[in-house]
């Protein structure tokens, strides 16, 4: 392995490969930062291009784009409260409050470092532990996935906000949206009204961009602010981030990296789930959980480390087994197939230089991210905010629509996005929290499919759900998660009663 690693390293040391990694990272930050363009869309745009490139150059662009976009998504999340990618939703929770308190520069810098660290740890896991971790992937079947989805759904409770009824309504609406489309287990269409374009369900990009970006645009139009953000508010230098503040983030970084990698190796889950879970765990572990959501740097660090440490880890099943776990991994597998490289154990044997080269690219681009994100890109993109909002709003609309249209070539998807925009606007005006809905959409179908698939495999025997040790473990974790807040509330009550 190490000689192959060395050879891969040498192969990467050409000017075009280095340029590809820098360019890929920069494009990634750009794509992530533009609301409407996501990692998936960016990679889909790259695939046709990569036909004409040598494999390592094409993969370098992809690795850079993947890592870069995970950080890029944090930029509008912090500055505008619009997550640039689905994975950056959790970054808005504390990032935007920080920006409103004039700590935008600090939040961006934390997001950048956290993304880079997450991506770096994840790439190391990919390089060193890929074969053993791929066995973990295989151990997860429908029953185990059902429990993973249930765990995610239970963690919605942390995101409910101040009004639990509205939070729960938001989540159940998400579950209902998740059931739109063809039910693959019976072949029946549900809530499609004879429209084939709803057969695959509602695309998560449509829901996300509709819910988060369009209401913000309409709000900008209503406020009609003719100036941009002033230079003072956007001062990026002189942030109060010092060594001690960074050291205090280390536990969050470690915890979130572990969560991100764990989520990453499970097919079906993605950066968004990793970010939510690591945010929840950071909040749960904190001594001051109530400060989360009001601009706690650890919230930003947890979300950004979580979504980036999912990156390289999610490629473990793809590269080792040839089984892509999510849309992004499937696109990267497509990028390998373009060059006639079939992922799987044979790839390591026959094309070791390329596989290890790609793993190293995931590692190197995470380091590049610190330089590019910290120095150039952040300054550059923050300037976007100095554009008068009345001009920025139509540009965001144009990018939202263009991004969706280049991958779907469908007007219907644009109208659907506007529909979700109006829903998001209404929910925002009536103080319904949006994140529970997104989680409902993502996890609802995962829970349903896997539950019913398990019951089909066991021919109706419910005990199959708890047959494996992994299932039991996750089910116990769910009980713990449900029990802890109850106990905390109980203790508080006891203490209060004692006090009075």
């Amino acid at each position: 392995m190490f000689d192959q690693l060395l050879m891969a390293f040498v192969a990467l040391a050409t000017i075009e490969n280095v340029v590809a990694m820098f360019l890929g990272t920069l494009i990634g930050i750009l794509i992530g930062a533009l609301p409407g363009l996501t990692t998936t869309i960016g990679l889909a745009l790259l695939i046709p291009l990569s036909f004409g490139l040598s494999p390592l150059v094409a993969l370098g662009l992809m690795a850079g784009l993947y890592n870069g976009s995970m950080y890029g998504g944090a930029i509008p999340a912090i500055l505008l409260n619009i997550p640039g990618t689905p994975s950056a939703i959790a970054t808005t929770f504390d990032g935007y409050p920080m920006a409103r308190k004039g700590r935008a520069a600090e939040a961006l810098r934390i997001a950048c470092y956290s993304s880079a660290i997450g991506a770096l740890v994840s790439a190391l896991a990919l390089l060193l532990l890929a074969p053993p971790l791929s066995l973990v992937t295989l151990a997860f079947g429908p029953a185990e996935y059902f429990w993973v989805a249930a765990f995610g759904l239970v963690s919605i409770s942390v995101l409910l906000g101040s009004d639990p009824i509205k939070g729960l309504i938001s989540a159940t609406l998400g579950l209902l949206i998740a059931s739109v489309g063809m039910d693959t287990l019976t072949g029946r269409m549900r809530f499609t009204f004879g429209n084939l374009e709803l057969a695959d369900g509602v695309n998560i990009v449509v829901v996300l961009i509709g819910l988060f970006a369009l209401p913000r645009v309409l709000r900008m139009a209503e406020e009609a602010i003719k100036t941009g953000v002033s230079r003072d508010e956007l001062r990026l230098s002189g942030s109060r981030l010092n060594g001690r503040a960074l050291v205090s983030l280390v536990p969050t970084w470690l915890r979130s990296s572990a969560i991100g990698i764990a989520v990453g190796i499970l097919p079906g889950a993605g950066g968004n789930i990793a970010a939510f879970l690591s945010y929840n765990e950071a909040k749960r572990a904190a001594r001051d959980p109530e400060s989360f959501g009001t601009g706690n740097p650890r919230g930003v660090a947890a979300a950004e480390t979580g979504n980036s440490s999912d990156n390289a880890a999610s490629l473990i099943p793809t590269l080792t087994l040839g089984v892509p776990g999510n849309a992004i991994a499937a696109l990267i597998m497509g990028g390998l197939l373009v060059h006639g490289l079939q992922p799987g154990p044979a790839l390591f044997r026959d094309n070791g230089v390329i596989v290890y080269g790609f793993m190293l690219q995931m590692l190197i681009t995470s380091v590049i991210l610190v330089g590019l994100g910290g120095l150039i890109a952040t300054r550059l993109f923050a300037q976007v905010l100095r554009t008068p909002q009345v001009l920025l709003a139509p540009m965001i609309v144009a990018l939202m629509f263009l991004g969706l249209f280049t991958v779907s070539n469908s007007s219907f998807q644009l109208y659907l996005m506007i529909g979700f925009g109006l829903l998001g606007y209404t929910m925002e005006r009536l103080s319904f929290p949006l994140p529970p809905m997104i989680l409902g959409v993502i996890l609802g179908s995962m829970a349903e499919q896997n539950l019913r698939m398990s019951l089909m495999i066991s021919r109706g025997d419910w005990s199959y759900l708890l047959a494996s040790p992994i299932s039991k473990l996750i089910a116990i974790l769910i009980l713990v998660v449900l029990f802890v807040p109850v106990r905390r509330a109980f203790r508080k009550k006891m203490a209060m009663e004692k006090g009075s």
Partner: protein
Amino acid sequence: MMRLIRSVTTPDVIAALALVGLSAWALYYVSGLSARAAMFPRLAAGLLLALSVAYLIRELFRASRVEPQPFFHHAPRFVIALVLVVTYAVAFPKIGFLTATIVFVPLFATAIGMRRPWLSAASGIAFTAAVYVVFVVLLNRRLPPERIIELWRDF
């Protein structure tokens, strides 16, 4: 009587009624599906119905006590922005992305109160050019064809 009606028709009450209607309709809809296909959506719709009834009751009691908040910040500008966004979504696949965008950006800005026409127009052109460079030149993507160029060629 009129005052009573007005006092309970807060945005929250209307939303709650809409949610009750939606979940009731969804429950009716899934009754036409087979039991296995209906299980999960029925669960979601049932939960939603229970929650929205609770929401409705709470808001009805609260409505008489709380002064209703206006729903829009600025209704006219909201309507203008929405109409323009919808028009743009309908138009650009038909007349071409670049043509539509170069008009849409300054039009939107001006319609909601931008008073510097040259700056708006220049921004529209610069933005469209940037999109063209990134998507067409760098990424080699096909954008919806520009009707105006075809018309010009036919002419």
